[in-house]
Structure formats: structure tokens, C-alpha cells
């Protein structure tokens, strides 16, 4: 009895924890929690409410940005244990604490919790405060939701429905500002819609380190602007459109393209560099409309770079390979192509064949290539791809799965080191057969006239290229948005992605025809699903041994090596 009373006492929390009461429900919260930079700082009321499962509406607060506390939407009432003359908490006759309710509300995003604190988020006062804050925010808001891209994912819409007044009392004329401000090459600003939460300013100043934006003018005329004469142009500008709670900042790429409620959301990864940012693909009727970042604190926090975000238009380019083909294939038929390739591979002699596989293929597909290479006795390599890196997310390695190719033994320790060797061996006639999966080797040091000497050349890619054009057999592949699988990022984190759209024509995921090919050539089947191939890979490759497909979940798992 005494013990239970002890554990119920809000002041007797375990070390490192604080007991607070949110709307009558007592919860234990950590004394400190990571702030936007990951430093441990005292837990705020907003975080405590979130841990208690109570939503506190907010605009300016963002877990990955410094706290500004200017929108006042998260105002809550609270009380702390009253202290007696002996500076000890006073208690009721039944032993419970005497709570002294604060005479004023406080912003939940910037007020730290203290032991025994009580937070009230659903009192009439709090409701009225939220209503009033919304009323102020809506005073000069244009209410042009029908033409606003944010409609459907707009916090102002959502909170107005949930916490706002039913009707407007504002009879005066709204202040009108500039509706089409060209902030930079990828961002358009509508100053009227802005509620001045300053998230974009803090993001670009504190996260990116490019202090490009600010608020100019005063009062109702306050507006976001770039410094005169400059443009808002860094590699992370489009994140401001994501974090903008209203439709003030919009992506020029996505602007007026599709209403967000039509978009099917698919958990995926960005394949534009080795970082492997987690993304959500917004697609409708087999067309991709946008990539947006998905939170993964181990990889990309809440952000992604503009380069990766806008790198999707090539998927629907007209020169996609849509059917199997090649100089030795009479009709575009998968069965004929697989039979022809399998027959050709059975005639090759170990030592006279080489394989080049793309580091854009998934772990599972590269594993199948590995099976093939081991059976045929073929040396393998990947084509390296690099570009300038930055200090935030963009990685110099522009292949999404170089690490995976290395772990699977496909890539040389320095990816691409074998390619000149292959070129020399083709030229002197040692290598008579070459398999190229997902690359154009003519752009990586093997000349087309050398490829013409080969007895047997099989290529696959997403688009028609210099290698597929002269290959004996070519197979149409899929972009990563058109298939399932997993990538291993540069830090060795295995993450999976799902299929968003269907491949065009007869194009099939590499896994589909590689598993068929492996089965025909080696006589051993590893199954045709991503899961079965992953299982087989796990049994064989040490780096993947302790990881099951189901463990990958949404955020992936770091490999042991």
C-alpha cells in the first residue's frame, strides 16, 4: 500500500525521469530529450504531451529546427506543485500534491517540464486561445484554397477545422501582398498565404547554413523575402516547401500539377546518391508527381536535397526500353530472350567471360548476379559514378548501392578498377563474352568497337544506350520506383523500398529475369520474390547474416560490417 502510494507520487520519479500529468493522465517523461541538433536539453511540455499521446497544435515548432515560439498556437495551461513555507511541496490530506495553477498560459514548445507539473490542453481557456490565434492568423490569409497547392495537407486548414471558429468576424479589407514572388529557381512564394512561422528562415539559416531568407516590413505588411538582389538557391530549398505549414512556399516543379489527395504514397528511397534518403513517392495513375522526404533520423532526418528530389523525370522518358531485343533475337519475347541467353551462357568458358553490374541494382539483384558470376567463373565490377558532395546529405558516390555491391563482392574494392582490365582483355581476345546489367559500358572505358569483337554480349538497361544498341541480347530493366528491393547506403545501412508505378511495356524488374536466368544456367532456384532471394542472400553473405527482410521495416537496419 505504501509502495503503491510511493510510485504514484509525482515527485518520486526514477532518476532521469520526470512525472508530469497531461489532462489528468500521469506519464513519465525523460528529464532531457534531444533537440534539433541532437543535444540533450530539458524536455518541453509539447514533447511531454506527445509522449502522453495528446496532440498540441503548432505551426512554428518543428522537431528538427530551433525553437522560435512565435506562432502561439501551442499555448496550454499548466500548474506546478505549490511550495509551503518550508520550501517543500504542500500536500493535500490524502497525500496528493497541491497544484498551483499558473495564472497565464505558456507555449508548450518552449517551456520545460518540471517534476509534478500538470498540463491542461483541453480547458475552455485553451480552446478559446487556439480559436483566437487561428482567428488572428486568418485575418490576412487569402483563403484561396481552391488554387492553393497546400490544400489537403495544410495545417491551417486542419487546425481551422479542428480548433477554429465556424465563421469569420472579420469585415475589414484584407491586406494584400505579392502572390507570385520568384524566390529562387525552384521555389515560388505567395506572401499573402504566409503565417510568418519562420520555419523556412530557420531551416535555411541553421540547417543548411545559407542565411538567405528573412522577414521584411512590419505588422500586417510583414513578409518573407530573400535578401534584395539575391535568390534563394541552395541544394535544399525544396525542403522549405515541405515544412511550410501553409501554401506560401511551393515547389515550382510540383506547382499546379496535381492535388495532393489524389497522390498514392509509397515508401521508397532516393536513388540519386549513396546516402539513401528515405522518401515518399507521390504517384497517380502510374505517373510520378513528386518525391518528398520521409523522416529517418539515422539517415536524412526530415530532409532531402533538391538534386535527388527532382531526379525522376528520366523515368518517363520516351527512349525507355520496353521489350527484350538485340541482334540475335528475332521477336521481342521474354521466353526467347531468356532461352537464348541461357544457351549462350552454357557455352561460355570460365576465364573468358566478365560481368559488369550496375551499383544501381538492388542487393537482391546483385546477389543473383553474384550467383551467376560464381557459376560462370566470371570476374565482376561496377561502374563508378561520382559528383560533388556537400556537407549535409548529398554524397560523392552517386550510385545508391555501391556498398551493397562491395559487400556482395560484385564491385572491386575500388569500384570500377576492373573495367580497364576488362577492356584490355576484350581487346586481346581473352574475354569472349560480356554481361552488362544496367550500365552503358561504352561510357566507362570499353569502346564500342571492342564490344563488337565479343562472341556474346548481353546488356540490360532502363534506357536505350550505346551498349544495348550493339548487344546480341538486351533486356529492359526497371527504375527503382518500379520495383521492390533493398539498397545498402554508403554507411552500410540496408533499407528497403516499395514499388510505386508499373514498368512500361514488357519491361520487368531485374530480379524477375535474373532469377529465371540463374535458374536456367545454374539449375538451382532461389525463388522469384524479393523475400526469397533476400533469404538466400542472408544464408550466403556474412554481411547480411543477422538481418531478416522483416527487420528492415520502414527505416532499415545497419549491417554488422
Amino acid at each position, binding site marked *: 500500500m505504501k509502495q503503491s502510494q510511493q510510485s504514484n507520487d509525482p515527485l518520486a520519479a526514477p532518476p532521469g525521469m520526470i512525472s508530469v500529468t497531461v489532462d489528468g493522465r500521469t506519464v513519465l517523461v525523460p528529464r532531457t530529450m534531444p533537440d534539433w541538433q541532437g543535444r540533450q536539453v530539458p524536455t518541453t511540455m509539447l514533447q511531454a504531451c506527445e509522449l502522453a499521446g495528446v496532440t498540441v497544435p503548432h505551426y512554428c515548432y518543428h522537431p528538427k529546427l530551433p525553437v522560435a515560439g512565435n506562432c502561439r498556437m501551442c499555448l496550454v495551461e499548466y500548474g506546478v506543485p505549490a511550495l509551503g513555507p518550508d520550501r517543500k511541496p504542500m500536500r493535500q490530506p490524502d497525500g496528493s500534491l497541491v497544484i498551483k495553477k499558473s495564472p497565464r498560459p505558456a507555449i508548450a514548445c518552449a517551456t520545460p517540464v518540471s517534476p509534478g507539473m500538470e498540463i491542461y490542453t483541453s480547458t475552455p481557456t485553451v480552446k478559446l486561445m487556439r480559436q483566437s490565434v487561428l482567428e488572428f492568423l486568418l485575418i490576412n490569409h487569402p483563403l484561396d484554397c481552391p*488554387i492553393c497547392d497546400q*490544400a489537403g495537407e495544410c495545417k491551417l486548414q486542419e487546425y481551422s477545422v479542428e480548433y477554429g471558429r465556424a465563421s469569420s468576424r472579420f469585415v*475589414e479589407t484584407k491586406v494584400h501582398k505579392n502572390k*507570385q514572388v520568384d524566390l529562387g529557381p525552384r521555389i515560388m512564394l505567395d506572401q499573402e498565404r504566409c503565417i510568418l512561422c519562420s520555419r523556412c528562415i530557420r531551416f535555411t539559416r541553421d540547417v543548411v547554413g545559407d542565411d538567405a531568407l528573412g522577414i521584411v516590413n512590419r505588422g500586417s505588411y510583414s513578409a518573407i523575402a530573400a535578401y534584395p538582389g539575391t535568390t534563394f538557391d541552395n541544394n535544399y530549398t525544396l525542403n522549405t516547401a515541405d515544412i511550410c505549414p501553409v501554401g506560401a512556399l511551393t515547389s*515550382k*516543379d510540383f506547382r*499546379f500539377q*496535381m492535388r495532393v489527395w489524389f497522390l498514392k504514397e509509397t515508401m521508397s528511397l532516393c536513388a540519386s546518391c549513396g546516402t539513401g534518403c528515405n522518401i515518399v513517392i507521390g504517384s497517380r495513375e502510374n505517373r510520378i508527381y513528386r518525391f518528398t522526404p520521409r523522416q529517418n533520423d539515422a539517415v536524412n532526418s526530415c530532409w532531402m536535397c533538391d538534386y535527388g528530389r527532382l531526379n525522376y523525370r528520366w523515368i518517363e522518358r520516351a527512349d525507355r526500353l520496353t521489350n527484350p531485343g538485340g541482334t540475335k533475337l528475332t521477336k521481342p519475347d521474354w521466353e526467347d530472350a531468356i532461352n537464348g541467353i541461357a544457351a549462350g551462357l552454357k557455352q561460355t568458358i570460365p576465364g573468358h567471360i566478365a560481368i559488369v553490374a550496375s551499383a544501381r541494382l538492388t542487393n537482391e539483384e546483385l546477389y543473383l548476379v553474384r550467383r551467376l558470376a560464381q557459376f560462370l567463373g566470371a570476374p565482376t565490377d561496377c561502374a563508378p559514378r561520382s559528383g560533388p558532395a556537400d556537407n549535409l546529405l548529398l554524397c560523392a558516390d552517386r550510385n545508391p548501392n555501391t556498398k551493397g555491391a562491395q559487400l556482395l563482392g560484385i564491385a572491386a574494392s575500388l569500384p570500377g578498377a576492373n573495367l580497364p582490365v576488362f577492356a584490355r582483355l576484350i581487346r586481346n581476345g581473352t574475354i569472349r563474352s560480356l554481361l552488362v546489367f544496367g550500365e552503358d559500358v561504352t561510357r566507362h572505358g570499353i569502346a564500342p568497337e571492342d564490344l563488337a569483337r565479343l562472341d556474346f554480349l548481353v546488356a540490360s538497361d532502363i534506357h536505350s544506350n550505346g551498349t544495348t544498341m550493339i548487344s546480341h541480347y538486351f533486356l529492359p530493366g526497371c527504375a527503382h520506383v518500379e520495383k521492390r528491393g533493398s539498397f545498402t547506403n554508403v554507411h552500410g545501412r540496408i533499407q528497403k523500398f516499395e514499388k510505386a508505378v508499373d514498368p512500361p511495356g514488357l519491361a520487368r524488374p531485374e530480379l524477375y529475369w535474373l532469377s529465371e536466368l540463374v535458374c536456367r544456367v545454374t539449375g538451382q532456384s532461389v525463388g522469384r520474390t524479393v523475400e526469397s532471394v533476400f533469404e538466400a542472400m542472408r544464408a550466403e553473405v556474412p554481411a547480411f547474416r543477422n538481418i531478416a527482410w522483416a527487420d528492415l521495416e520502414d527505416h532499415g537496419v545497419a549491417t554488422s560490417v
Partner: protein
Amino acid sequence: MIAERPTLKLVDRLYLTAAWNGFKVTLRHFLGRKVTMQYPEQRWAVPPGYRGAPYLVRDQTGRTKCVACQLCEFICPPRAIRVTPPGPAVDPSTGNVEKRPRQFEINMLRCIYCGLCQEVCPEEAIFLMQDYSLTGCSREEMVYDMERLLALGGVHHDHVRKWDRVRREAAAQETFPPNPIY
């Protein structure tokens, strides 16, 4: 349930009385007031509030009222409506409205004349009008495009003209201090 089968008398079995009664009805209508309408030469007066085919309208200045918000496409139960949004290119002819559909199609074969598109439209741009008899020689022909829908819809006399009011308000604030327009 077991139906009682009445035993018919001889008079009944001859059917002559029944036939005679039938002839009497025919004769009465033959001589009486004509009630059949000679459709399609003659057409009935469509009552107000009738839900016919949905068409797009322009306002009295000739502006296409639709702003491609796609709410009608979203609400349409048989998915008869397909709106193609304008895309990011700024269209100077739209003025301060910024948006106008690039294409707007209604498949009249799918439309069930429920009127939800009219109800949901925040711009009063689509109305169920009085046409109830739509014909065509092919399925493609029955997919009405924006041009056709606007031509059929005609002009809606809008008393509010909210975008125009916003434009005038904004223009009045170009001068400083802003002078109220009311």
C-alpha cells in the same frame, strides 16, 4: 401461400366480356383528350432544379470560372470527371486567379447526374443544366471536353465575383497609405 384458383363460369371462359371491357377503355381514350407527347418533336418543360447534364460556365467577363481545384473529380461517384491541372507555367491570361484547367473532361456515359460536382464546387463553375437527352455515335464522342462543356454551359451571372473583388482590393493597396475601396 396457396392461391385459391377460382372456378371460371362459362361467361368468363369465353373472354368476350373482358375483351369488350378492354375495347371500352381504348374507345374512351381514342375519343378523349390526347395525353401522349410527340417526343422528340415536342419536349416537356424542364422544371427548375432539375438535374441534367453538368456543364462548365464562364462569368460575365468571359473568364472560365473553373480553377482546376479537382474537388469535383474527387467527389464524383462514378468517376466521370477528369481534370488536367495547368502545371507550373504561369499563365498571364488567368490574372490573379493563377489557375485554370488545361483540360476538363466529363464522360457523359458515366455521369449519373447526382449533382455532387455542383454542390462541392467552391467557385460555382459547374452546374447541372437542363439537358437530359445526350446522344452520340461513339463512346469517345460522349466524353465532353472543356471547350464543349463551356460552350454548352454558357454564362453564369455571378453577383459575387470574388476574384475580381480581391484584384480590386489589391490594386487599391498599391498606393500608400492604402485607401479602402468601400
